[in-house]
């Protein structure tokens, strides 16, 4: 149970964030008031079962409409969504990536498929910041149509979660949409298959190389209320934390690293020496369970 706790919470989150199970009958998406709340993880709001809004889609919509908003004196800058994500980040940093995000769960499950595994070079970890800056903020504001509206660059050209959760199911549910399929859709399907294949070979490639939401949360990892603590006096540098880490972090070199998704595998499963513990708002939490002392193990 303890070992599977994260998988259970991930699965429950995926079910709750996609809890509109009436869609096979209604053949359309959920349209209730819950959709005014943004999901903490990446979950397309055009998924027929989605019960909440996608935070990245919402921010892009605000950025794309910012010129029109100013002209209409409405001043919608997306503060509601940015504030909501900032509150989550300030509380727990990137923890939603490890425990809530449905697309993270899909990647975790794909990585379970046995076979040869590869590591992702460190340089790719800067990718999410480039995608966050360009596709979420700069391009939607900068490149506009004749009416002053921008495009949802990330959703339109990249997001594999949108293709998987919205594109493919809606094409099955609504045959009229099939007539609108063009080259762009096939490119997005290719992007999806690329990340599916990469997820079998490497752990969480989308989160580590592209995801702008993870990039946003990562700014809070070192400053959030929830912190992981390193106890160097107990650490043997056995590298079990590095071996088990889904994002290849050596905890003893960089605790609360910006790449850390707070899955807590290092704390709960890897470290046998009690070298890792957590703390929230001054309250000390459980440390990794010491099984043998560092002295005995040498």
């Amino acid at each position, binding site marked *: 149970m303890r070992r599977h706790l994260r998988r259970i919470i991930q699965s429950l989150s995926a079910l709750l964030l996609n809890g509109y199970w009436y869609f096979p009958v209604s053949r*359309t*998406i*959920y349209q*209730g008031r819950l*959709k*005014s709340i*943004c999901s903490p993880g990446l979950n*397309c*709001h*055009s998924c027929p079962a989605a019960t*909440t*809004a*996608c935070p990245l*889609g*919402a921010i892009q*919509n*605000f950025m794309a409409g910012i010129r029109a908003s100013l002209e209409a004196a*409405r*001043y*919608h*800058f*997306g*503060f*509601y*969504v*940015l*504030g*909501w*994500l*900032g*509150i989550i*980040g*300030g*509380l727990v940093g990137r923890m939603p990536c490890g425990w809530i995000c449905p697309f993270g769960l899909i990647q975790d499950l794909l990585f379970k498929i046995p076979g040869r595994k590869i590591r992702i070079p460190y340089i790719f970890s800067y990718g999410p910041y480039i995608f966050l800056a360009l596709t979420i903020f700069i391009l939607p504001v900068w490149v506009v149509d004749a009416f002053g509206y921008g*495009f*949802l660059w990330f*959703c*339109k050209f990249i*997001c594999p979660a*949108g*293709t998987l959760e*919205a*594109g493919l199911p*809606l*094409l099955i549910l609504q045959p009229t*949409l099939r007539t*609108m*399929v*063009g080259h*762009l*859709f096939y*490119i*997005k*399907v290719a992007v999806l298959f690329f990340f599916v294949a990469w997820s079998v070979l490497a752990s969480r490639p989308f989160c580590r190389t592209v995801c702008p939401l993870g990039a946003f949360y990562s700014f*809070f990892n070192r*400053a*959030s*209320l929830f912190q992981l603590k390193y106890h160097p006096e107990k650490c043997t540098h056995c590298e079990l934390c590095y071996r088990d880490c889904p994002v290849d972090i050596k905890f003893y070199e960089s605790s609360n690293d910006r790449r850390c998704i707070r899955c807590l595998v290092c704390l709960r499963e890897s470290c046998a020496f009690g070298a890792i513990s957590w703390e929230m*708002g*001054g309250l000390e939490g459980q440390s990794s369970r010491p099984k043998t002392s560092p002295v005995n193990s040498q």
Partner: protein
Amino acid sequence: MRKRPFIIIGVFLFLCLIGTVNGEVKSVLQKAVSICLDCMGIG
């Protein structure tokens, strides 16, 4: 106890409230309840 997390949470809570008062919640709802063709790759 560290003060920084509480300051960060307070600032973003304030931002969230400004957005809410400014009617952004309704705007999020309006976009999220209609099918996003861009998200599907056919927009």
